[in-house]
């Protein structure tokens, strides 16, 4: 859905890899997770807990809460407020916070 506006030679940022639902996605050091996902065409980002409707980032500034994903085990993190790091593990939400098995 989004793409880089820089050519390879113009882009001095380190190229890193993150995992999204187990798949490797390429990203650039310093960018927000939300834009990395938009650049990789990860759409929709999630399905809502209310009706299962597809959503993707809307405001990119932390007020709309539509860009929520699971980051390194923490659920419902605003991906627009988080910077990518190499090896980041992302899971895309399908509805409400999942609970897991009893201990």
């Amino acid at each position: 859905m989004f793409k880089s506006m820089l050519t390879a030679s113009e882009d001095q940022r380190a190229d890193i890899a993150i995992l999204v639902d187990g798949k490797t996605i390429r990203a650039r050091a310093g960018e927000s997770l939300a834009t990395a996902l938009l650049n990789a065409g990860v759409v929709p980002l999630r399905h809502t807990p209310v009706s299962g409707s597809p959503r993707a980032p809307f405001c990119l500034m932390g007020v709309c809460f539509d860009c929520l994903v699971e980051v390194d085990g923490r659920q419902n993190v605003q991906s627009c407020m988080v910077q990518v790091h190499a090896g980041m593990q992302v899971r895309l939400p399908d509805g409400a916070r999942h609970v897991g098995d009893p201990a």
Partner: protein
Amino acid sequence: MISTDIDTLVIGGGVVGMSIAYGLSKAGERVLVLDEGDDAFRAARGNFGLVWVQGKGEERPDYARWSMASVLRWSSFAQELTAANGIDLELQQIGGLQFFLDEDELRAYVRKLENLRAAVGDYPFEVLDPVALKQLSPHIGPEVVGAVYGPRDGHVSPLRLLRSLVQRFHTLGGILRNGVRCEQIDHRADRFHVQAGGQEYVAGKLVLAAGLGNRTLGPMVGLHAPVAPNRGQVLVTERMQPFLRHPSGHVRQTGEGVVQIGDSKEDVGFDDRTSIDQLAHIAHRARKYFPLLDGANVVRTWGALRVMTPDGFPIYEESRQCPGAFLVTCHSGITLAAMHAGPLADWIRGAAEPAAISTFKAERFHVQVHADGQ
């Protein structure tokens, strides 16, 4: 403008007022409800939605009986509403749990329930050790030393309940005047004249169900309503997958998947704000009950003002100075909604007073009341 074709005026459009108004309308009365505006305190909005009998009324078995009767009646009360307007109240009556982190507290509580059972008779409950508790509530935390299961306890959505009552009341021809404050009530020639929002309303019967507002309204018709606010702070999480079927006084999961967490009892006057110290304490306790809540995001908190009499028990009283004026106050408006819509509404219409409530009069607080408002 004077309205003269009203049978009963109800002051207060919360759960208590609307349950009674619904009951009266269903029986064919022409009812008008006066309700304040968007900013009113509204215990109806702040509560935990419990339909609960466990642990109530230790010093007063009548209250336990009244609560028990309501709980047993709740299912048909809900079904009747849902059949009429399709709104699912999300009523769950599969039982409720009271959790304990301390053995002594658990033992003291069990003794309390045994006393209640001795006084009331039909009073089922079961003490669960951690193993039995885990069967019932698999995500319970390791620090919980035990729980008491009350098979008749449950919960409902307070939002859906109030919306359903309002909607049904409209369909039955009831009139709801919102955004008005009751300024003055006079009793002349067997009629009550209520001034509110620049208009006068007249009816033969009057029900004061205005929560904390009853304190000033009561004396206008010879009734004493020594109610004061008691704050309970509540936290609410984001929606979660279902993991908790049984409600408790401190944690419950709603039909939407949201987890509601409480509770406190503070005498802070008319202050509905929250305090970090109390919220942290509530959160700290909830984590012990359900460790999986650690990462759950708290989306909102609030302070709800309970309407408390000095002993915590209701007042259901008809004015002697101004017959036809009724005072109704309690802090369990959700649990008691079924009785309020049923036997209490019948009593207001002239039927016999339910036995269980005959002692819930203001005179137990040892005051003299005069019609001129003390």
